[in-house]
């Protein structure tokens, strides 16, 4: 992305707004039970917060916020959280992804509630990591200014 001097306002607003977008994205992920939201939507907003800084303030400055190398590992970590929740449920006696068998305190509906929450966090991280990785990979070979 080419930088010009009159981008100061855009860069400053983007850098200031990005953390608040991330907070709202976390809210969307965790509040998916009670309002429109959930893992996919929150993850996309997280990715939007990161890509906003990349677009507005330049790639090199954005590396300080979220380095390029973190994208795919974050995506893999999200998928492994998802799979891990299901596999722990399998190890504890249920079928795959049967949250009632997770080793948590509380009644079965409460355990299922928490299980879905873990899944959604995994999905959110995965979507965020992969969308940012796609953006970074698409711009990898561009001419630098």
């Amino acid at each position: 992305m080419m930088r010009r001097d009159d981008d100061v306002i855009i860069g400053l607003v983007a850098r200031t707004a990005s953390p608040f977008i991330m907070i709202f994205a976390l809210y969307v992920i965790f509040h998916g039970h009670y309002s429109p939201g959930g893992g996919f939507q929150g993850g996309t907003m997280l990715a939007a917060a990161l890509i906003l800084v990349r677009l507005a303030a330049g790639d090199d400055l954005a590396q300080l916020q979220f380095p390029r190398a973190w994208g795919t590992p974050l995506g893999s970590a999200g998928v492994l959280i998802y799979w891990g929740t299901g596999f722990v449920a399998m190890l504890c006696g249920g079928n795959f992804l049967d949250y009632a068998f997770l080793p948590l305190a509380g009644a079965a509906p409460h355990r299922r509630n928490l299980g879905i929450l873990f899944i959604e966090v995994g999905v959110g991280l995965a979507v965020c990591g992969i969308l940012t990785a796609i953006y970074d990979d698409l711009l990898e070979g561009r001419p630098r200014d």
Partner: protein
Amino acid sequence: MTWIWNNSPALPVVLLLPTAIAIPLFALIDRRLARALALAVSLTTAGLGVLNLAKVLAYGPVHYHLGGWPPPIGIEYVLDELSAFVLLVINTIAFLVLVHAKTPVERELPDAGKHVPYYAVAVLMLCGFNGIVVTGDFFNLYVWLEIASLSLYGLIAVGARKAPVAAFRYLILGTIGACFYLLGLGFLFTMTGTLNMADLKAILPAVAQEPAVAVGLGLIAAGMGLKMALFPLHGWLPDSYTYAPSASSALIAPLGTKVGAYVLVRVLFFIFGVGAATRAFPLTTLIGWLGAAGILYGSILAMAQRELKRMLAYSSIAQVGYIGLGIGLANPLGLIGAVLHVMNHAAMKALLFLVAGNFRTVLGHSDIGRFDGSVRRRMPWTTAAFAVGALSMIGIPPLAGFFSKWYLALGAVARGQWIFLAVVLVSSLLNAVYFFRVIERLYLAKSEAGENAPGTDAPPSMLVPVLVLAAALVGLGLFNAVIVNGVLERIVNAALF
């Protein structure tokens, strides 16, 4: 141990998915762990395939409820004879090809940084194939189908210089096919209100008169026809199989089109039944005629090719035509022929593409025009295995390929479809033409190099899978009665005609 037994329907997918994610992470420790992990998980799923087939043959269909939710609320994995059979075929062939893949990957992917992601994407594709075969929910099938397809596009694109263009064309056409499937599923879901396969089968008689159901079935058949490269929806296949790296061709040629054929058989014979499927429109007859056209088209064009992989690609179009013909006959013998051909063609095409990989690695090319006797003297085992595979494709008893054509011919006679019978017989002659062309060059052509051919045959990691598959073709042929009576008869008894 009982844990493995109880969870065996889901275990192939549950093991393959994290391995695909974990391979890049483990490869940070040691690069060779990538291939080792891929081989380990592939061998495990092949073993699970045997376990699942034994379980289904002993106890009947197995239902596994994901998340503990009963269907039709939850997603379930269903193992019946057809799923277990196709699962075993896919996993065994995949293991043999992954064993072979070591040297071709190193030779044909010059960028060493791509080797580890290659194995990860290959395992992810296997995970997708396993999911397609095991699932009992239509939308879950769409998700696994797209996972497998996206991995396929990636595996093709790292090949020759023209590979990304072939992969892009396959991407556009493959996504159209998946979108047709999704749209057809949308019609069926709107009319019946359920996505579960067994539940849809139960509700279907109440709504079978509606035109929306017929259109939905037609769209699903069109989408799966595109995925299995049924003529005339085969346009993506020749370039993709030719320009892909040798290891990818050997992975996707035997398996990629078979899962599309599996879904088509499942929907036409086990969910709808032939009677309901052909009520509004003679769908199975159309598939049969398109299969016959594909057989002739593929065989004739294969004769005109100068390069081995492209010839095998057109041959694949013809072989998928056989499966389409078997589906189109819509009687028990035809269905046996089609499902048997799924297994036989997977083994035969895997063998032939592995042999092409051997030629490419050792000789540097696979142009038929440049084969001569020195190739046979240098690579006697590979050439012999190629001869076995070629004879099986032509349909010489007692090799495996003869028996699937035999059942297709019997099915055609039972229906009085003499044109289909003629197509099966004529195509064997056409197969003989283009395979004997290669065998003649290998065994009879004089070479300028003289008696002493320099160099040796392919390394053991490439020779052993080839020889195992060649022996398997002989074994599958000799023992085909066991397979037909033990497994395929039960599949056909469960189907609706």
